[in-house]
């Protein structure tokens, strides 16, 4: 009941109309306090996105910002509620962020269902059960120095998300009381694994903001581990074609962890053709060890097909580079080579159907294109040799003429 009353008071007071027009006495006093924990909010608040839009301390904490008198400022009758904790934080933020009318004035395109989503998350459910150790709004966004999510200084900015989540999830101390559904301890290696992944390399290394970080697979406000049944959907959000191909494959029925079975989850490494086949270090070999196993036979066939196309692409590219380096016009061959490279990309996608015949069809298309490239390249090399032979013959003739002319000139000199 008391919490409800406080919330009602806050709802009434939360409006830009209440934005402080006089000097904010909360900041004046708190900035000069010797206790760093009490002074820090006052120092961090200038620059906060809420402060920039006219909100002040009392909009979240209640009280009276117009007076330097502490008892007046911290007056419960003025709605003063101190520092919100646990569920109060969610309620405080949700007063505005779940209000479509209010949010429309500041960020018309922003969603207003974060609180509802949060309630459905593992964090939200545990908070509802009384666990104050879980993440709330301020854990990820900060409390007094809140920045927009597209501000690189925000803890929720894509390149900072792994570190933000890792604050808790990489801490063995923090996570020791949490268990997986099967009772085993919750791992804390996710961030370290993610930072080795191809996704992190794209995000942090190439600054590719479309590369996924924690929240892209787990959700942010509704954060939860993706269930086994939805793994392909999670990966397929970006890797659409792979998801479609995989769905038709025999492995879709067998793999418990779908994509993760071969590619891992947090530590998704850059895929390579070497994953395919039956050699010891291949992924296929971890299940298909028996030579009579149809899977072993299929993996061998697919490996050989891929090997055929990749080596053909490499050798044709080397030939065309050599011919081009010699100055021959190879525009058409370069286009054909690009077409063959596209076939290689298609073949790598097709692998996810685990159907050697379907893969072979694409590989054959590619090698057919490359045969044409090689033929043109070899012809160009022959043409080059012909030109040079022709040049030497011409130079020989010119040398003869020049010698004859020189002799004639010498004769003329003698005559004079």
């Amino acid at each position: 009941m008391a919490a409800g009353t406080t919330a009602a008071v806050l709802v009434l007071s939360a409006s830009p109309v209440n934005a402080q027009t006089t000097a904010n006495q909360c900041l004046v006093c708190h900035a000069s306090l010797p206790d760093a924990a009490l002074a820090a909010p006052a120092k961090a608040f200038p620059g906060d996105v809420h402060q920039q839009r006219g909100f002040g301390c009392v909009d979240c904490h209640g009280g009276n910002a117009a007076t330097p008198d502490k008892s007046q400022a911290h007056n419960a009758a003025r709605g003063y509620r101190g520092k919100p904790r646990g569920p109060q934080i969610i309620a405080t933020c949700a007063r505005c962020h779940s209000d479509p009318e209010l949010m429309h004035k500041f960020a018309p395109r922003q969603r207003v269902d974060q609180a509802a989503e949060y309630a459905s998350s593992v964090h939200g459910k545990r908070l509802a059960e009384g666990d104050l150790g879980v993440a709330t709004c301020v854990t990820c966004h900060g409390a007094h120095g809140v920045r927009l999510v597209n501000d690189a200084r925000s803890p929720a900015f894509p390149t900072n998300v792994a570190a933000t989540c890792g604050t808790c999830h990489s801490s063995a101390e923090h996570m020791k009381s949490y268990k997986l559904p099967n009772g085993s301890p919750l791992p804390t290696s996710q961030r370290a694994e993610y930072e080795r992944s191809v996704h992190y390399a794209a995000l942090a290394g190439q600054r590719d903001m479309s590369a996924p970080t924690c929240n892209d697979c787990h959700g942010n406000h509704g954060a939860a581990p993706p269930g086994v049944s939805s793994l392909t959907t999670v990966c397929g959000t970006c890797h659409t074609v792979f998801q479609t191909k995989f769905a038709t494959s025999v492995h879709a029925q067998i793999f418990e962890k779908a994509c993760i079975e071969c590619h891992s989850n947090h530590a998704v490494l850059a895929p390579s053709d070497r994953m395919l086949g039956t050699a010891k270090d291949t992924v296929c070999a971890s299940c298909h060890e028996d030579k009579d196993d149809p899977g072993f036979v299929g993996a061998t066939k697919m490996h050989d097909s891929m090997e055929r196309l990749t080596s053909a692409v490499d050798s044709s590219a080397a030939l065309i580079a050599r011919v081009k380096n010699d100055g021959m016009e190879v525009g058409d061959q370069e286009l054909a080579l690009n077409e063959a490279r596209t076939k290689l990309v298609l073949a790598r996608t097709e692998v996810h159907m685990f159907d050697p015949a379907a893969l072979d069809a694409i590989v054959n298309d590619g090698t057919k294109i490359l045969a044409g490239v090689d033929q043109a390249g070899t012809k160009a090399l022959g043409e080059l040799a012909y030109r040079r032979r022709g040049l030497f013959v011409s130079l020989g003739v010119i040398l003869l003429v020049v010698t004859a002319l020189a002799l004639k000139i010498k004769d003329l000199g003698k005559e004079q």
Partner: protein
Amino acid sequence: MSQIIDWVDERLDLSGIRHFIAEKGVPIHTQKIWYYLGGVTLFLFMVQVASGILLLLYYRPSASEAYESVQFIVTQVEFGWLIRNIHSWSANLLILAAFAHLFSVFFLKSYRQPRELTWISGALLLFLMLGFGFSGYLLPWNELAFFATKVGTGIAGAVPFVGRGMLRFLRGGDDVTGATLSRFYALHVAILPAMTTVLVALHLLFVQRQGMSVPMKEARRLRAGGFQKQMPFFPDYILRDVLVWYVAIALLAALAAFYPWELGRKADPFAAVPAGIRPEWYFLAMFHTLKLLPSHILGFEGERLGVLAFGLAAALLVVVPFLDRRASREESSPWFTTVGLAALLYFVAFTIIGYLAS
């Protein structure tokens, strides 16, 4: 053969020409080697005309077909590669020879009275050759040429007062498009050749009427009663000229076979400007100088001032015979030699720096 000549002689009376050829002599002195530069320039121009006409048989001057037609010439047409490569290399050697000819004439002060008109026609021919190079560079419609033309016509746009009009005239609009290609084609194969033909004829006429100039020292010696040793123009000198032309052919053939002119990628007006855009080497010194100029000099726009300075330098080059009065009196003019050396040094140094910088 003699019967044919007799037949023509009977009708046209070639005795005047015969007499002219028999009497024409070329002075022999220590600097006579520079005489061959004019001949080799003329020879390379003839190579350009011949190879250009052959290219015209297949070239199609439109934005949608130009690149493909050149690609067709170098890949499908029998000896098309040879013709195109000879045309490209010969263009460069021609401009190199023209520059060398100009500088040799300048340092020998051969422009002095009474050969002012020969010098003026020669300087104008050099500008026409540069015009040929600039307009021909765009014709294959490849990426490098497209963007270099954009930059080049942009520089023309910086000419004070008339720049905007010049830019629109050259481009056939505000930007480099198919209309620019049509204009450059018309310039390259009709307007410039017509002008060049007239000027080459005049230049040769002047040379034949006045004979070869001799260095000033030699001229002073002759004035003092010295004897001018000469060789007959025909066949002695002409055979030497032909020998040099054969060497030029050999050089062209070797360059065409070992260093074919790259066609590159087709021009795409919407593509990002590729790295390493630069004009042909003979514009590099000017291009790099304009790049180095500050945005404003004494309150004037730097690039405009630079273009104006180059225009002024070109105008001064044309009227050099009238400025160098000492040379006309056959007195040495060390100031002009110094300025010429400085110009040559600047041209070579900035061409190299410009090449390395891009």
